[in-house]
Structures are given as C-alpha cells and as structure tokens.
C-alpha cells in the first residue's frame, strides 16, 4: 500500500519508509532533533568530564560510565552552534555508534531530552539541500510532528569516519 506509492514517488520516498519508527527527540537551542531509539542505550545526567588533549573541540573528553570509559561529544559544538552553559536539563544520551563492524559506545551532550515519538513514513520528508554551506549528510530526514519539524539524525554519520579521521588528524598534527 504505502510502499507501492512510496516506490512510485522515487527512491527518496522509499528511503523515508525505512526511516519510520520510534525516535528519541531532544533539543539544541531552538532546534529539535531525533535519534533512532534503537541506537540509544540510556540517558544519564551530565557528570564530570575529563578533557583529552589533541582532540577536536567538539570532543569534550571522556567519562566513567559504570566502569567503562567512553568519549563524550558536544553536539552543539559539533553542529557549530554556540556553546551554552550547562543547565539542570543538560544531559548525555549514550548511543551505540556503528564503526566498521563494531559498535562503539559514545555519549552525546544535548540541551534537553524531549520525548519518544512514533514517526510514520508519511510524516518524513527528505532532508532539504542547503548547498555546500550546510552538510546534511547526517540527516536521515525531516519529521513533521504536529506543528514542529524534527531533524532525524543518522548518528553513525554524525560520528562518521571522516569525523574520526579529523580526530586522528588533529592528533597527528600536534
């Protein structure tokens, strides 16, 4: 049914069908984003972060997640937004990022977590193009929920190998 129409509407549409599902939404400033719920491991309070030298600015450092040391990314800095002082609502979403064949646990700092949304295929539009000025490769699609728009993130691409290469690159330069 929907699939037939979707396929007819072109590849972009079909991809959107695959993107339907549950999303954890969170806010960065005024913008709202969604993460596939399957990639989210847990949500924790912001704790003391140990800075790691020679890493890009958006890598805030490492934390102790019940005995495991995991890196923490500041999504605001990653998206070139202004950094903001931590509030009571600031928290860390722990996600599983695919890296090659393995999965890496990474923390993502966000302003505040909103809710878990069920987003149907019909509600998802492909990511708009903004030319080279804005890199939208890590946006799966735009979810239209009530009157808001939620940017659905491909967390694997947010922490893509290019980004990691950047980490290594910075490391090598210095």
């Amino acid at each position, binding site marked *: 049914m929907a699939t037939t129409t979707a396929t007819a509407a072109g590849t972009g549409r079909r991809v959107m069908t695959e993107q339907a599902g549950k999303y954890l939404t969170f806010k960065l400033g005024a913008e709202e984003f969604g993460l596939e719920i399957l990639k989210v491991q847990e949500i924790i309070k912001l704790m003391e972060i140990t800075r790691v*030298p020679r890493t890009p600015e958006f890598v805030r450092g490492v934390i102790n997640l019940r005995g495991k*040391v995991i890196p923490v990314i500041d999504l605001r800095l990653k998206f070139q937004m202004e950094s903001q002082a931590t509030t009571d609502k600031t928290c860390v979403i722990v996600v599983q990022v695919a890296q090659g064949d393995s999965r*890496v*646990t990474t923390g993502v700092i966000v302003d505040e977590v909103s809710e878990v949304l069920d987003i149907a295929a019909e509600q998802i539009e492909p990511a708009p193009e903004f030319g080279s000025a804005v890199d939208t490769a890590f946006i799966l699609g735009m979810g239209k929920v009530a009157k808001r728009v939620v940017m659905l993130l491909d967390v694997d691409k947010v922490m893509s190998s290019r980004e990691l290469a950047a980490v290594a690159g910075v*490391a090598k330069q*210095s």
Partner: protein
Amino acid sequence: MAETSSNAPRNIRDQIEALAAKVVLADLADVQALADLHTCFEELGVAAEGQPPVVRAAAEKAVTLVAEVILGDAPDPARVMQVLGETVTALQLIVRDRRNPAEVKLPAELGLAGAAAPAAPAPPATSDFSTRMAREASAMTSDFLNEVTDRLDTAESLLLDLKDAAPAPEALYKVCGQFHSIKGSANLLGLQDLSRAAHEAETALELAASGKLSFQTQARDMVLHAIDRLRVMGEELATGPARPPGGQAEAGPAAAPKAEAAAPESPSAVPAPAPDAALSGDISVDPELLADFIGESMEHLEAAEKHLLEVGKGGAGEHLNAIFRAFHTIKGVAGFLNLDGIRGLAHDAETLLDLARTGKLSLEGDTIELVFGTIDHLRTLIGKDTAKGGTAGRAGTQDLRAQIRKASSGDAKGAAAPAGAAAPITSAASSPSAAADEGSEKAQPKETVSGSATVKVRETIRLDAERVDRLVDAIGELVIAESMVEQVIEQAGHMTDQLHRHMNQLGKISRELQTMGTSLQLVTVRPIFQKLVRLVHDLSRKMNKPVNFVVLGEDTELDKTVVDQIGDPLVHMLRNAIDHGLEDSVETRRQAGKPDAGRVELRAFQRGGNIYIEVEDDGRGLNREAIMAKALKQGLIREGQTVSDREVYNLIMLPGFSTAAKVTEVSGRGVGMDVVKRNIETLRGQIEISSTAGKGTLFSIRLPLTLAIIDGMIVKVGPERYIIPTLSLIRTVKPDAQDISSVLNRGLVLRENNELLTVVSLGEQLAVDHGAGSLADGLVVIVEAEGRRAGLLVDALLGKQQIVIKSLGEMMRQIPGVAGGAIMPDGNVALILDIDGLVRMATSRKEEPAAAVVA
C-alpha cells in the same frame, strides 16, 4: 641472496654449508628469506653435476617444498622447514663427508629413498621402497611403531634434561635402555636400518658413560641425530604404504610429503613408554594435561561436527580442512598422552578426510555418516561417562576403524576393494594394526580416558577468556567502588570503629579477589622455554657452534597474552645471540680465553611488579664503533657527538637501521631487532641492551606482570591530574632555579648530575590551562622514554596508586601522549600518559631530535 646468484658455479660444498645456515635462520614469515632458500636450492640442483644423482633430486624436491611454503600450500610449513634441515644435513654427509648415499638417510618427505636407492633418485625406486616397506609393515603390529616413538621421545627428553657436561653413567644408561629395546624389536622384525641406527646411539651412549667420548660435544648430538633418523624411519614405516600402489612416477614423491605433513605429530609426540598402557594405569600422564585434553577434544569434536554438517552445502574444502584439523589435533594430543585407541581412530579418520580434501574420495552419504560415527565414538572414548564402558568402547573402536579403513582404501584405489585385499592400505599407521585386528584383540589399545580411579584428574574448567576479562573488570570496579564509599564516609565524618573494622574486612576480601583475578590470567613461561631449548640445540648443531644453554626461572608466571606473544621475539633474540653474538669459531673463543662452548643463558624472574626475561651470551659483544659509523652515515648522530653506550645499543633497534642486511654484518647484531622491540612495546614492556666488547651481550626485557593493572604516579598539572606509569619513572626532583635553563626561549633543559635533560612541560604538551608560573614551584619528574631520559614538569605529586587500565575506545586510540584512562577513587576518569609518545613529540619538533636528550 644476490651474492649467491652472481656466483652460481661456486663450490657445491660451500653452497650446502651456506644453505645449512640459511635453513636454520629462515623465518617462515619472511618471504624474502624463503625466496632466498628457493634460489639456493635451485642453484644447488644445477651445481649438483658430478655428484651422486640423489643430490640433484633432493635439491629439486626441496625447491618444490620451499615453493609450497611460499605459496602457502604447505599444510605444515614448520614441518617442511624441518625436512629441509634434515635434507641439508644429509646432503652435507654425502657431499662433504663423501658418505655413500645409500647410507645416508634422506627425509621421507622428499620422496627419495636414500637407503633403498643408492644412486637412483628416480621415482620408481620410491615405489619399490614403499612396496617393500608395505610388506614389512604388514608383518608388524602397530605396537612396534608406537614403542619406537614412545621410546624416542623418552630418550630425547631424558637427553635434553642432562645438562651436565659429563652426566652420571646411570642417567646415560637409562637413555641407552630405550635404544636397546628399539634395537631388539627392530631386529626381531628384520628392520636392519632401524636396528643399526639404534645400535649407533646405544654405542655412543655407552662410550660416553665410560668416559671414552665426550657427552657434551659429541655423544649427545650423535644420539639426537639418531633419534631424528629413527623418527624418520618410523614415519616411513608408518606412511610408506600410504602411497598409491604402483603409482605414477610423479605420484610417489608428490603424495609422500602430503601424507607426512598430515601426520607430523603422531610419531614424534609420544613421550610415555608402554604403548598399550591403559590410561588408568599410566601414572606418567599429567592429570592436568589429561583434563585439558578432555575439554579441548570435546571442543574440537563439536567444531568438527558443525563443519561436517556444512559439508555438502558448498564450500566443502574449507570445512573438510577444519574437520581434518580437529582430528589431527586430537590425534596429536592423544598420542602425546599415550591414548592409542583414540589416536588410532583419529588417525584413521584423518586419513579418510585427507583423501576427501585432496579430491581422491568424495565425502557423501555413508562416508559422512561414518565420520559422524567417529565423532560420536571419540566422544564416548574421551568422555567421562564411559568410565565403565571400556570394553564396549574398545570393540566399537575396532569396528569403526575397520570401516573407516575400508572406506579409505576402497576409494583410494578408485574401486570398492575389500579391506583385506593384498594391496597396501591407505592409512599407514593403521595397516599394521589391521592385521592385528583380525588376529588378536589384545594387541588393541584398551583405554577410556577417565575410566580410572588411580589417576586423580585435577578438575579444570576451560573458560572463555572474555569471561575472565569481565570478571577481572568487575573486580576492578569493586575496588574502585570500595574506595569511593570509604572516601565518602570519611568526608562525612561518620567513621566509627565498627564501620572501620567492616571496611577493613571488605578491603581484605577485595584485595584477595584482585589477586585471584590477576592470577587467573597468569601462566608459566615453561612451554615457551621448552620449545626454545630444542631450537637452541638445533641452531648450535647447524651453525657448528657448541652452546651451553642455561635456562632459569621456567616457572615464572606471566600474563597469558604476554606469554603467547613473547615466543617470537625470544626466538629472534636467541638466534641473534648464537648467530652473531657468539664467536664464529671455537679457536677465536680459545684465544679470548673462553671455554669452547658459548654460554647462552635464558632466564625469567620477577622483581617488583615486573617480570624480566633476559637473554645473555658470552660472545664478542656489540661492536660500538661499527654501529656508530653506520649511525653517522645514516645521519642518526652527528660527527663528534658524545653518545652513551646505551644510546648506541638502542640504535640497533631502530627500524631502518637493523633491517638493512649490510648493517647486520657490520654491527654483528640487529636482525629484526626493531620488530622485537615493537613486539615488546606492544606488551607494554621495555627492552634494554648492555654489552661489553669481548665479554658478551645482555638483552633484558622488562614486562608488566599483568596487562590490566599498573602502578601509577598521579601528578597534578594545573587543575587536572594525570597518571605516569611508574615503569617509566626514575625519580622526582625539585629543581633550583639555576638548574633549569631555557633554550632559545622555547625548550627547557635541566642540569642533573652533570647530565642535561630535556624538560617537557606537561601543561604545554597537554594544552592544560596553566595558571601559575610553574617553573619556580614545579617539580620535575625524571622519566625514561625509549632508553633516553627526560624530565616532565608538573605542579605536584598526588600519590602512587594501582591503576586499572581502561581503553579510551576506538575513537581515541591513537592520541599521542595518551596511553589510556583509569577510573579514580572519586569516580572520575584520569588519563594515563604515554611517556614515550610525549617525549618523542616534545623533542621531535626540534631540529636535532636525538641531540637534545643526548648528553
């Protein structure tokens, strides 16, 4: 290699001598060296004009074998190298010592039968040989072969245990007895070659016992050589009939190596005597080994079963190999443990599978069922449940073996011939016992593994290593959590006497847990060291350098990961020590006033939280001048620069330095030392070289006891804290202002006991927001990085602590200067510094990389 090829028509004797050294030194992983061997054997074949034909034939065959190894076609490359070694030894005898080729035993794998075909290496002779052997083999019981292998292994281990220059006669007679028995049985069966070889060994030992022959220099080698020859003969007897009857001219030699390679362990891994000893009665079997064997075999069988289920679903070759390996391993260990029933069955199954994987037999229908049946039966034989079912098991074993042999022999000949047909039967070791099957039941082995009340099997569990890791992790967490609780209680001022007592108790338990957790991952270095004993012996013989090899501290325990990875570096170092370290000739040693035999010592010991493994020789020592000259040429040091000995010796471990072949000759050391160093460093160890010209060289490896926990010094830099592994720590100084001077306003140098040390500001290197002008009130932690000293400028020391190392994860694995993370008692993470990386970074920006730290 280039040198050889340019000089093709040179003396064949020299060529063989050169080959002898190359075979011993060739590293299986080193394609270059293998290619070199290939060339040398080829040239030998060409140069063999005028020599007995067998020389050329052997050389040509060796070329094929080397090619197989290079191409990865050889099922057991290590065995092939051994065969090549034996071949060269045989060729030495023929060419150099002008021995009659008929008397010289060539390895069976070459498919050339020296004894039977004196001057004719042509394959037909081989077939003749195999048929003769087949006839002989059929007249024997497998017991004889088992006896030979058992006794040879016993003799060998006894012999290698004799460390004195002149052992007590009783000890020698004990070895002698083994050969005497072999001789007797061989005579009985009319096996003259075997009998003669055993007799030679016996004579040598008797002479040594009566003091007419030096054990150290002559008798031992003669006997070991005899053991090798006897083994080969035994293997030939066992596998000879495996060759297809009346096979094509090419088939003989080609098939032989395969059969050999398939079963290299069976004859050579049976140390205990009494071939048909029921396990229950055989106390010489180590209960621990036995328990391991049971566990391992069950796993192998399970894997084999899994793969067998996949056969027929495509990709059969790979699965067949896997099944083959499973049986092969079981066979090897069963042989080692003297479990002949199991070994025999596994061997027969292996033969069947070998036929299948070489395409001589298709594995389907009944044959598959047969293999399934074998797996089940082996399970029963090995499993604990069958303790009482020994008799039933035995009868079943024979049935099954007969069936398997029927299947293999039938298909091997391409026709369904009955098992009893006169034609040789495919499975060699089993063919003698085939006769026994019909004749006497008693000749059959009779054991089930755990059917014994007399042997107390120590219970062991084989665990997934990851589970152990997780346990150790959890224990680490517990320790951290405990100290966090303690801290909170103290800060809140709630510590009562009672609470204090409980906390103490808790602390005791968690420390005990930590020790236990650590010990779970520790194993002794004994197995590695034992392998090296034989290696050194062979090297010494091949290079014609008598070596007095001393091994100390075999029971030293190390992290399993380390033990698994330390073997290769040690092989390298021992090769170096014997090849380059020891003087080239006994005469040179005499002139230097040293005993004829070069002393090489391998020792392991624990000191503090570290394990040391050292290789020391009393050879000529490192040639400082040659190394310096080379380093100067490569621009590693400047003209007129003063360089300490330690720095000079460290140079040989630099990559480009040691891999260049010419340098090796000049420096007399350094073959692949960079690789050794790298391997050691990945184990978080350090290697140091000290050497005295003319006196010898010492390589000392320092390794952490475990890879999971280190001792660390916690330092404060600005608002942050970092951990410096105490392994690299030398001392801490509070420098006076005049001791520190700035260089070009960029770097800092500390004057310490007339030594100038580069000082690395941690705050700067780690980009810490550094408030105070730390130079005045800072501390300098003197560390050693890659053999050089440097100072690290920090604000304060916060204390020493055991640290559980945590990885920072994939994403941050390669950050220079950071080795990992650790969770501190307050629950936060602190970074463990990579001192080598830090110092390297800090100094490499300067124009003179080495100069800055070289005082």
